[in-house]
Every structure is written in C-alpha cells, then in structure tokens.
C-alpha cells in the first residue's frame, strides 16, 4: 500500500476508537473501553510505521505525496480538498504523536481506573489524537485549521474533564479563549495566503511563495506574524502562555499528552511546515526566535519557585518549547524537531512519574509536603530520575544531544545569533537547577507521612477529596478519583508505559550523535532542502565543543541543586529572605495574569456592560418597544371605525361608491 493509504488509516483508527467508545459508554466495561482506546492508537502507530517504511522505500526527492478524498469546495477560485500531505516531516510527527499517545493511553488504562468518567476520558483522548494527526497530516491550510480547532476543543474538553470542579472549568475556558485568539491569527494568515497566492494547498503555496513575494515584503511578513500568533497561542509562548499552568487542572495523563508532548508542539510543527514563508520573512523569523528565547528564560525563572509539582513541570514544558521555537525559527529545523521528539519522551515520563507521586499523596500536588518518596516508590523514583536527567541534558541522555544541537547551530549561524547560544546555555543551567530542585525535594530525605504509609503497609494514603485552591469539596460522581488512587508500583500498565519512555528518554539521543549518525537530520533533509538556512551546518568539532559545554553546565546545575536542597537545605529559605521582592515577582509569574486582566479582560467587560446598559437597553429595546407602540397606537386609531353601527358601515359603503363613481366620471370626461 502507498504511504498515503497508510496515512489515511492512521487518521481512521483514532476516530473510530473515539466513536466506538463514545457510543458504548454505558455498555462497554471499563477495561474494554480502555483497551479499545489504546489499541486504536497502537494500530495508528503501526500504520505510521508502515507509512515510514513505504516512504523510505522511495528516493529522498520523491518523498512527498498529496492525497485527497474529495473536494470540499470548488467554487469561485476556491479549491479546498479533504486532502493530506505525506512527507518526512508529517510522518515524523505522526510517529511521535502516535507513539507517545499509545504509551500514555496505556498509562491511563491503569491511572484512571477508578474514575467515573473513564469512558468519556478515553473517547476524548482518542478524539484528541485524531485531531492532532489531522493537524500534522493536513495537506492544505483549511484542513490544518480544522485540525487546529479540533485540538483546541479536545484540550478544553480534557482540561475541564472533572467538570464539577470550578477551577477546572475556569482553566478550560481560559485555555480555549487564548487558543481562539491564536485561531484568529491562523485564519487571517490563511486568508492572506489565499489572497496573495490563490491557493491553500501546501505544495502549491510553498512553490509559489518565492515567486510572488520579495524578501521582507510586508505581506509575507504579515502572514508569518499571524501564523506566529497562532503558533504562540497553541504552544504557550509569551504573551499567550498564561493558560498552560492552569491547564494542569486536568488529569495527569492529559497533562503529559497534550501539554507536554503533542498539542503544545503544534506551533513548532507549524513554523517548520511553513518554513518556506519564514525564509522570505526573516524579520518575522527573528521575532519568533526572540519570543522563544524570552519564554525560555521567563518560564525557567518561574519554574525555580513553583511549589506545585505539575505546574513546575508545566513551566518547564513552556521553557523547552521556547527552545524548539527558537530552533525552527533560526533555521535549525531538524534540531528543533529532534528536540520535540526527545522532549516528548522525557516530559511525558516526568508527568507520569509526577502523577504517580501525586496519587500517593492523595491528589496533593504541593511539593512542600512531599519528601522521601525515593524509598517509598522505587520504580517511580527511578523513572523520575531518568526523565529529570534527560531534561537537564545530562551527558548521554536524549535531551543532551537535542538541546545542544540547537545551540550549536545558533553558534554556527553567528552574528546576532550568538545571543541565542549564550542565553540558551543560561537557560540550560536554569533547567538543570529547577529539574533537580524538584527531584531533590521530593525523592530523598525522611519520608513524609504519606510516603511512610506506603513503606509501612503498602497502602496508598486516603484523604477526603477537596480542592486545595478553593477548599470546596470535590464531586466524585462525574470523575475525580474518589477513594482510589493508582500508583505505578501497583499498576502494570503504568509501569510498562513509564519503562518504555524511560528507555527512550535515556537512549533515544543516540540516533542523532553529531558526526556519527544523524538519522533525524538525514530523514528530514528533503523537507527543508528549499531553505538556504540548511546550508549552515555546524562542523562536527563545533558540535562536540558545544556538547562539552552543555555537559558541564548540566552537571554544574545539578550540583547547585544538590547543594541547595540536599547538602545545605537551609539555604533556599535564606535566599528567599534576602531576595524577597524578586521571589514575590517570580511566584506571581511575572504578573502576566494580572497584566492581561488589566489590559484586556477589564476593558472587554466594560464594553460588555456598556453594550448592555446603553446600547441594548436604550437603542435596541427602545427601537423594539417603540415599534410595538406605534403598531398598537395605530391599531387603536383604526379601531374607531369598527363601531358596530350597521348604518355607519352603510354610510362608508355609499361614500366609497360615490367616490369611485366620481373618479370614473372625472377620468372619462
């Protein structure tokens, strides 16, 4: 079968899985529903592998195929097809998405076992995977927008999965609104593309763009900036990032799938896919790179002071995506995509481990109260350590090779881009510190009461479920694990998933060792061959130099974290005392939420109030009720004629007749 046929199957299985589980939500037993969900994505992964094999069987230049099922709209110059585009980039994304999704489904199979909304969860999760695959496989901008919007919806549905929880629904709405802002950018970009180039199909757009646009012409820059709005909103970059930490209200598998591995990487994919346009608008590309850099640093600093375990990991995600955006914007396309892949592995793993620990804490996510889980939960600790090492770019791990490849490219490009290298390394230092801050606070040390309970009786701690943010009691009818929590040690699906990811997090980097084998770069080269930026290739020596610097920084960072949290545990408190204003600033997340509230939310509410009070009540209501009054009034006036007197009716008859006769007499004379 051809690659496109496999690609269509890739799309089909998750959609079928979602529908089947949704239709059978009352009849299917939970285990069956979970199995169907996992199997669906597993099948999609297999089809993705088959598509890969099929692609590899062709020569590198011929590895791009478009295939469409039918025409959506063929009218007035518009020609929109339900079409996919299969090339190395989309197959790469398909494999990453389906691979990590299968493992996360497997994890959820165990983790969400006691949740009332089990079926709903798997149906939504399958639908999400379908939407993400649609996004990456789309062959034209219209279908891309469709996938983009579906992904936004799936994210909303999954964030507010426990919908009786006030904080969850608010977070879902926040995520959705910010996503919609991004959607607007994307749609406007699509409009502009159509206006300038006359088509939506990828192959035609990217072929015509260099002929139609001059470099840095305002149209192509506008298109790229609008695309960036979409990318930043979806990937939680400044200033559209405020939704991601709140999105941690969703269940942990959701956080690991959507907000670590797949959805938030959609922005990176978008920039990589439309690199032809960004090459023509270097200003926009530079802006994107700087935004990525800024996000990287801001998120890194905030992660240093976060006390909520999942939120800390969320800021870490934001920071790493900053790396990816930076990478694909400055031209390190394969490096950026490679980092996307390794990040998916180790971030998903970190979230899974965090989920296990939070379950042991009876859904308490505050790291101030966690200690000593290293003894209580061996498997989880080892998994967390693997993920942490990869995140901190410890030498030899996957994160090591991927992150430093981006920074090596930045050095090779030279000039202004050296800033990225320097600050990128500083960000790597921050990454190592905050990662191991988490690990050193949670794992070693004297076990906290929950951990102690695990060590002593092997029971997971039970607590009355209540929302720590608002203090209100949780509603376990629709979900929210009630009395039962599942930790990895007691659930084989969770262990299986985490095991595979730990292996990948540690060793997946070996496929892209500079100078030795560069599987990813070679595979993705044909896609990016049309960009002049791929001519800049760091020499092997420079790459290894960069790797050495990265290794040093990583180890230094881990050392600093060790010193702060294990060797001299009183130091952090003292630091906070000394730098209180800075600490407050960071804890309040650089006041972004407050700024957005002030600049956007309040004016919008004021406009709404004005519209209601003045426009609606006075103008619209006034118009409507005055029309009503006029009609009623004229009715009252006319009603006088209907007096009930037969003789006056007769009079009117005669008057009418006389008038008519007069008219005819006059007109005929």
């Amino acid at each position, binding site marked *: 079968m051809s690659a496109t046929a496999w690609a269509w199957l890739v799309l089909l299985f998750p959609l079928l899985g979602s529908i089947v589980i949704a239709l059978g939500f009352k009849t299917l037993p939970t285990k069956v529903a979970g199995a169907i969900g996992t199997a669906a994505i597993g099948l999609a992964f297999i089809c993705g592998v088959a598509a890969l094999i099929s692609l590899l069987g062709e020569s590198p230049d011929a590895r791009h195929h478009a295939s469409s099922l039918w025409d959506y709209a063929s009218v007035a110059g518009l020609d929109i097809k339900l079409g996919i585009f299969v090339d190395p980039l989309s197959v790469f994304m398909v494999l990453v998405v389906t691979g990590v999704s299968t493992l996360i489904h497997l994890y959820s199979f165990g983790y969400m076992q006691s949740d009332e909304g089990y079926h709903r969860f798997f149906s939504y999760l399958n639908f999400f995977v379908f939407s993400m695959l649609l996004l990456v496989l789309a062959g034209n901008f219209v279908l891309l927008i469709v996938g983009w919007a579906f992904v936004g919806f799936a994210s909303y549905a999954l964030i507010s999965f426990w919908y009786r929880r006030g904080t969850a629904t608010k977070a879902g709405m926040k995520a959705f609104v910010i996503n919609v802002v991004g959607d607007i950018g994307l749609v406007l970009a699509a409009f502009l593309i159509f206006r300038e180039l006359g088509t939506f199909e990828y192959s035609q757009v990217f072929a015509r763009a260099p002929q139609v646009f001059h470099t840095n012409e305002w149209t192509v820059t506008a298109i790229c900036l609008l695309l960036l709005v979409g990318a930043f909103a979806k990937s939680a970059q400044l200033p559209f990032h405020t939704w991601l930490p709140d999105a941690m209200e969703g269940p942990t598998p959701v956080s690991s799938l959507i907000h670590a591995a797949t959805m938030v990487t959609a922005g990176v994919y978008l920039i990589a896919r439309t690199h032809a346009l960004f090459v023509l608008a270097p200003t926009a590309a530079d802006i994107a790179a700087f935004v990525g850099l800024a996000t990287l640093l801001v998120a890194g600093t905030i992660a240093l002071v976060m006390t909520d375990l999942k939120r800390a990991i969320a800021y870490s995600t934001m920071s790493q995506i900053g790396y990816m955006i930076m990478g694909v914007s400055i031209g390190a396309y394969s490096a950026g995509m490679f980092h996307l892949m390794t990040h998916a592995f180790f971030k998903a793993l970190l979230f899974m481990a965090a989920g296990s620990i939070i379950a042991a804490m009876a859904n308490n996510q505050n790291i101030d109260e966690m200690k000593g889980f290293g003894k209580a939960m061996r498997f989880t600790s080892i998994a967390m350590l693997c993920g942490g090492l990869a995140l901190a770019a410890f030498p030899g791990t996957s994160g090591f090779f991927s992150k430093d490849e981006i920074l090596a490219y930045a050095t090779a490009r030279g000039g202004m881009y050296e800033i990225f290298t320097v600050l990128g390394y500083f960000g790597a230092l921050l990454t190592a510190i905050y990662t191991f801050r988490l690990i050193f606070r949670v794992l070693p040390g004297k076990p906290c009461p929950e951990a102690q309970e695990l060590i002593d009786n092997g029971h997971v701690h039970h607590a009355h479920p209540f929302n720590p943010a608002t203090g209100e009691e949780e509603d376990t009818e629709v979900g929210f694990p009630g009395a039962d929590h599942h930790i990895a040690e007691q659930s084989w699906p969770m262990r299986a998933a985490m095991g595979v990811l730990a292996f990948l997090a540690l060793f997946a980097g070996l496929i892209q060792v500079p100078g030795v084998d560069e599987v990813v770069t070679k595979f993705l080269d044909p896609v990016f061959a049309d960009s002049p930026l791929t001519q800049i290739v760091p020499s092997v020596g420079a790459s290894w130099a960069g790797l050495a610097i990265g290794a040093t920084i990583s180890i230094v960072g881990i050392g600093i974290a060790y010193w702060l949290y294990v060797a001299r545990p009183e130091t952090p408190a003292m630091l906070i005392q000394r730098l209180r204003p800075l600490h407050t600033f960071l804890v309040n997340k650089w006041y972004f939420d407050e700024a957005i509230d002030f600049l956007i939310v309040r004016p919008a509410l004021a406009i709404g109030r004005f519209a209601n009070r003045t426009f609606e009540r006075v103008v619209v209501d006034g118009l409507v009720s005055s029309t009503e009054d006029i009609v009623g009034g004229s009715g009252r006036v006319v*009603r006088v*004629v*209907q*007096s009930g007197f*037969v*003789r006056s009716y*007769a009079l009117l008859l*005669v008057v009418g007749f006389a008038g008519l006769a007069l008219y005819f007499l006059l007109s005929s004379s």
Partner: protein
Amino acid sequence: MNTEWYVVLSSLLFAVGAMGILVRRSPIVILLCLEIMLNAGNLALVAFSRMVGNQQGQVFAIVVMVVAACEVVVGLGLIVAIFRRKLPLDVDELRELRG
C-alpha cells in the same frame, strides 16, 4: 319617453333607497329600502332590455326578483328571531360585532 327617462328615474329611486338605509333605524324599514333599491335596478334592467330590443334584461329582472324574495325571507326570519329573543329591534342597539 326615451330610455334616458327611465334610467334617470331608476337612479333617483336608487338614491332614495340608499338614503333610507342610512337614515332609518328599524330593521324592517331598512329591508324595505333595500327592496326599493332592488326594484330600481330592475327598472334599469328592463329599460335597457327595451332599448336593446331583446328580452335578456327581462329574464335577468326575474332572477333579481327571485333573489330579492330569498333575501327578504332570510332577513325577516332574522327579525323574527331577534324579536323572539326579546332584543330591541333597532340596528343601533344591536352592535356587538365591533373592534
């Protein structure tokens, strides 16, 4: 007398009948005035029939008479019914059909 005289007389009678309907309040008298108007029409019909020279106008006049008879029957039936229900026989008093 030429036809004009008859037709003018017919229109005069018609006008008198119309005025009578407008002025009188007793339903019986109103029906009588209606008869006057119908007869005026008949007169015009017969006059024109004589003017044209065939008898179709006369046939029409006979049909008009039939119609007038029917209408009188129903109208008087109404009046009797009203009288039976002890309602005042005055068209100005009977005015519930109004807006």
